[in-house]
């Protein structure tokens, strides 16, 4: 939304071309073959739009912003078209107790059918009094809504792992949703903010296949978080060659060398940022010269200082790698020995001869005979 209250694209029709393009990107993000675009399309066009309850707790609304303010205006429209967003504090028209009534109404009406999207961490210290909405503690709202939800999608690092609020000393005892709700299907889509395409793809997956995508140990969809940033980094060649940025603005920084020594968390962070990138114009943190802070990784993003170097999970890069050219030609030990022996023999013989030659001028045998 811009300051005139107008969300670009939301009021306009999406062309079929843009629509298929978006679905294709989403399918690609999930690693699905092109044939699945049709299935996605069918799911999206289905008249029964699944209801979504979108909860906000301790957060900055950055995740919502990243969804609504993409450079591709059709994106937000698509999201809002395929789901029935029945409760979202940022964009809903209702306010105050009216809004809370809507929430109660919706969770009862769609009990067991709606998807609960959570944004923000949940405080647990002192009984969870540090975040309350309408006099209700966040932890209680969460438990109440989750009980009736079919699945939960935790969006952003805060909802997934506690986010910046959970950093030591963690005054509010902030935790991610998976610490509070343990008995419901839960998908984490971490990031600060997560890539909008990852949110879209996750929602599309659930809608299309009616199941939860394959998850990793931190409950992240493997299609988006299965690979290490370091392994797909366009600057990886500089890492392997030992070319590092030493200071911001130095020669290496201007030439786009590896940011490892600036504290890049790429070697321990799993996400598809290097390949999917952001804002539809191919930018991402490392691409613009900032080290990865590890915002998709628990206990890395916000917990480790930006400048801190992490230990790569493979070997530490050596200062110099061997040249990639293959040595040709031969140089054998026996040859070295033979040449050394020949040289030594020559020098030795010269030495022996020199020692036998007189070193005194007067012992010159020559003289009277020559100048005849």
């Amino acid at each position, binding site marked *: 939304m811009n300051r005139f209250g107008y969300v670009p694209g939301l009021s306009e029709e999406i062309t079929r071309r843009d629509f298929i393009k978006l679905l294709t990107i989403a399918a690609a993000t999930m690693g699905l073959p092109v044939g699945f675009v049709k299935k996605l399309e069918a799911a999206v066009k289905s008249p029964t739009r699944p209801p979504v309850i979108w909860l906000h707790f301790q957060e900055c609304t950055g995740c919502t912003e990243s969804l609504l303010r993409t450079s591709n205006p059709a994106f937000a429209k698509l999201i809002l078209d395929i789901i029935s967003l029945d409760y979202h504090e940022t964009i809903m028209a209702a306010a105050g107790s009216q809004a809370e009534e809507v929430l109660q109404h919706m969770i009862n009406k769609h009990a067991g059918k709606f998807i609960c999207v959570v944004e923000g961490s949940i405080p647990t210290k002192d009984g969870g009094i540090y975040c309350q909405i309408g006099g209700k503690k966040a932890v209680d709202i969460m438990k109440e809504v989750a009980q009736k939800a079919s699945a939960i999608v935790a969006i952003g690092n805060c909802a997934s792992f506690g986010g910046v609020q959970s950093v030591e000393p963690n005054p509010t005892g902030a935790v991610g949703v998976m610490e509070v709700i343990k008995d419901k299907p839960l998908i984490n889509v971490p990031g600060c903010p997560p890539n909008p395409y990852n949110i879209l793809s996750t929602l599309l997956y659930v809608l299309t296949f009616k199941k939860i995508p394959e998850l990793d140990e931190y409950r992240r969809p493997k299609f988006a978080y299965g690979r290490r940033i370091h392994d797909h980094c366009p600057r990886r060649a500089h890492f392997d060659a030992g070319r590092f940025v030493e200071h911001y603005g130095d020669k290496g920084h201007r030439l786009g060398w590896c940011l490892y020594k600036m504290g890049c968390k790429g070697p321990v962070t799993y996400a598809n940022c290097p390949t999917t990138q952001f804002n539809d114009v191919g930018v991402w943190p490392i691409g613009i010269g900032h080290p990865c802070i590890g915002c998709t990784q628990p206990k890395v993003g916000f917990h480790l200082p930006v400048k801190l170097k992490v230990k790569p999970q493979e070997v530490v890069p050596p200062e110099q790698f061997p040249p990639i050219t293959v040595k040709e*030609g031969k*140089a054998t030990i*026996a040859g070295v020995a*033979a040449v050394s022996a020949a040289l030594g023999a020559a020098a030795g013989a010269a030495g022996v001869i020199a020692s036998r030659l007189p070193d005194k001028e007067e012992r010159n*045998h020559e003289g009277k005979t020559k100048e005849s």
Partner: protein
Amino acid sequence: MIQESKYEVVRGKVITRTFLMFTFFFLLSLILLAVRFTKGLGAVTNLSDGYPWGIWIAYDVVVGSALGCGGYALAILIYILNKREFSPLMRSALLTSALGYTMAGFAVIIDLGRYWNVYGFALPNRWNLSSVLFEVAVCIMTYTLILWIELTPVIAEKTGWNRKKLEKIVMVAAVIGLILPTMHQSSLGSIQIISLKKLNPLWHSGFLPLFFLSSVILMGYAVASAESLLSSLYFKRPFEMNLLKKLSIYMVYIGFGWIILRFIELIFWGKISLVFTQGFYSFMFWLEVALFFIPSYMLWKYRSQLSPRKIFVFSIIYLFAGAIYRFNVYLIGWNPGSNWVYFPSMSETLITIGIVSFEFMIYLIFVKTFPVLPAKEV
């Protein structure tokens, strides 16, 4: 060559322990040569597409012919500068020259990958007249022939041929013998002018022919001095100290001149900083310069009190200096690309040792059969 001094045959048995040692190495190399000529270069050498020229060219041909330039260097002194007093050294210098050049010629044939094509050299329609290498080959072959012609009076003295007719031929041969080494010894440097990017700029220069020619004259005097002292020692003959002292002063002049020329070239072509920045190459450059400088300085310092030992040691160092310079140009400073390596194999080195041993064998036989060394006038 022209008869001006008296010479005599060395008395003694040809077959000695030293002679047998040389024979052993020669026979060993014959076995390896049989392998080389039947199984090819790859069977005995470390030569590759990157380093098609190895120790056989760098040592046997380039250094070997330089060591064979005693006759040439002395001829300049005797015939051009008219220093007739050096003529007693001439015959032995000619003999080593003839041996050195003959062996260099054989080494080229050993080094030829398709040696069975060598007859093409005798067919003028196959000549490439704009090739420096061709010039070197023709010169070396002709000069080898000239050297043996110059040696015919030695044989004539023994066999009693008609010496008057011979002397006319030898006169012409001596004149040609002065021109040819000037041509091909400088051309051995010219060859490397075309390896523009392959030869390190510390050595690559348009002056390569001059560096090669000037250092070969120095090596010629050094080899003549060392050989004179060596034969005096082993055949228990008087040392030619008066001649050698004068010769060593010429060596000092050429030695210092060579170093000055070397630095002038580097300074004028803006390459002087390379003498510190090229790592291993810089080290080899300084080694080379030091080997030229030390004997020049020492011979000059002790010029009034030179002993046979001093002249021998510094002559040998001069020979090493010239050899290192030639190795630097042909192998060490020569880099065909970072992925190529070369170091001579054991068989390759043993063949070289065998060729050198053969030279010594022929020398020993020759001086004990024909009057080559200066006569003792007691």
